[in-house]
């Protein structure tokens, strides 16, 4: 029995100190996925905290057949999907607060003060387009892509985490990629459409070439 198993066993017997150690061991993994799903630190924190609360309450049912981290990720995804489904608030944020994105903080003032959303979008890099597109997908599709391409899970692991069949994993991924590709194209198109030819020349950043190429492909074909 390894250390983790011991801690799990103790936690199953209501040993909170042992559970805290488990949290310490796995918080990075849970937080990382939470962050990808939630998209910002504040919500990632809340989600991750809920995950461990739920994990503790459910830990008696945990069998050591599964990897504990994967089990936690399963809780993470399911909690998040549930939250998404229950989502019903219009959240409010401050105009003065920086907005978190995985790429870093974006001050809305950047967009607002500039007063030129076209420029703003034009300058976005390709990966930003992909992130935007990802966030536009349905929760199920988004979760599938994050688990596969960002977290690197295998189809089998995904099936366990998402509690669905292998076939569903495959088809969901395939569909998600299709949709993602369409959305990326739309976003790129929009960026391109707004920016026009002038922007092509001005496009900056390491991915600007990709955006240009996509746009050119479209115009040409």
């Amino acid at each position, binding site marked *: 029995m390894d250390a983790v198993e011991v801690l799990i066993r103790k936690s199953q017997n209501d040993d*909170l*100190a042992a559970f*805290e150690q488990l*949290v310490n061991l796995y918080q*990075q993994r849970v937080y990382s996925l939470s*962050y990808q*799903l939630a*998209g*910002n630190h504040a*919500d*990632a*924190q*809340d989600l*991750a*905290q*809920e995950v*461990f*609360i739920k994990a*503790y*309450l*459910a830990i008696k049912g945990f069998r050591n057949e599964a990897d504990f981290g994967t089990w936690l990720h399963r809780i993470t995804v399911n*909690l*998040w999907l549930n*939250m998404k*489904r*229950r*989502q*019903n*608030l*219009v*959240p*409010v*944020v401050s*105009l003065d607060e920086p*907005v978190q*994105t*995985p790429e870093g903080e974006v001050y*809305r003032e*950047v*967009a*607002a003060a500039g007063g030129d*959303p076209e420029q703003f*979008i034009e300058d976005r890099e*390709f*990966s930003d387009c*992909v*992130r*935007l597109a990802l*966030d536009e997908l349905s929760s199920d599709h988004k979760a599938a892509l994050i688990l*596969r*391409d*960002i977290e690197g899970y295998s*189809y089998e692991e995904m099936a366990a985490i998402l509690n669905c069949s292998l076939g569903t994993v*495959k088809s969901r*991924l*395939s569909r998600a*990629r299709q949709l*993602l*590709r369409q959305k990326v194209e739309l976003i790129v198109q929009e960026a391109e459409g707004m920016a026009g030819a002038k922007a092509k020349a001005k496009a900056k950043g390491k*991915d600007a070439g990709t955006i240009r190429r996509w746009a050119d492909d479209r115009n040409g074909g």
Partner: protein
Amino acid sequence: MNCQEARQLFSPWLDGELTGEEAGALRAHLAACRSCAAELARLREITAALRNLRVPVAPPDGFAARVTERLRKPGLEPAAGAAGGAGRAAEGAGKPAVAAAAGKVVPLAGRKLSAPGSGGFGPEAAGGGFWFAGWRQALRAGWKKGVAVAATLVLLFGGSVTLAARYFGWPGIFNAPVVVGQAPSPDAGAGAGVKIDQGGRQDAQGSQGQVEPGNAGATVSPRSDDQGKQPVSEPVSRPGEGDQGRLLAAGNSPGTPGRPPEKPAGEVNAAGGPQAQGQVTAGAGTGAEPKVFLNQPRAVESVLIKVRVNDLAAAASRLAAGAQARGITCQPVNNDEKIKIYRLPVPKAQDEQFTAYVAGLGQVFHQSRDIRDISNTFAEKLDYYQKLIEERKTASGTQAKKLDADIQKVKEELETMDREAREQVILIVWLEQ
């Protein structure tokens, strides 16, 4: 191998999950088909970009201690965890938020996800990029009018964050920020007799400080449905009486007001189905679960009309009066001195006539029509609704109450969506001085 077959292999190919034989066949096809090769190249680019989105992040210091601290608190029931974060509002998780236009700080209760009743989930909330496609051009024109107005439009469209994500660079995540302006202050003349019928707008008001941490998780906002006359609190307060069944038909079956609520859900469904204007159906599809609404294609039609007026207050009053005369709810969704925006659910029969009336308020400088397919959104919500009903069957105590509230809320959302798709045109009126 034809293109369709080839494209089905793209995804597993990206994952390295093709057999040697499949991969060979795919390669052969790609060599001969430029279009498929280009398509796959794009998918590769996206997948590569996606894989690069991984960023090293760490939870804040003391995270584990906070978790166990919460676990030590008495009164933590399994239900709290199972409720998907419902407990957080009570924990004081509401973060300070500043209403955009007002610049004042309001605690945003249960901002996360799970608080029923304070919902901004209008049918428009779940749309996608599609919804905005037709609007973008029009909306962009308003950009320089100021952030408050732009933000209001985000609010107008509920929880959809497409616009925000595009224009502000926000991540479109589950609590994607939506800026809420000041509490809408109805014009003189508009305020008194006009009801709010949209969760989104109601929530916009609630966010101005009326919603407090701790109460968000348990209540259903009282509101008057413009069709259903039933007080929402009634079914909520009757757990364990097969009230789901009653909920199913309530509000949609004006012809069956006296139907006793005591039947089990399934029976009521069966009975209520044909009566409720064809919306309620008994066990269609899966057979095992109660179904409420037909899972049919639905689309919401909307009209955006921008009118330049000489006197904004006067025009707003006339709009409100005209709406009221036709029984249309009318409430501004923003509070801006130069521009007022309204979202009005207009019965289809009155669409043209009322649009003409609105156009008569001043000079129309933009008008466009859009149709948004909400079939998927509706189907998802319906699934969720059925799931709640299933959960309710085995629930008791506070959990049952909470589920009842959820069920009621989701039901209302379904009804609103259904009504808007079948009977209404959503008129978005932009009055500008």
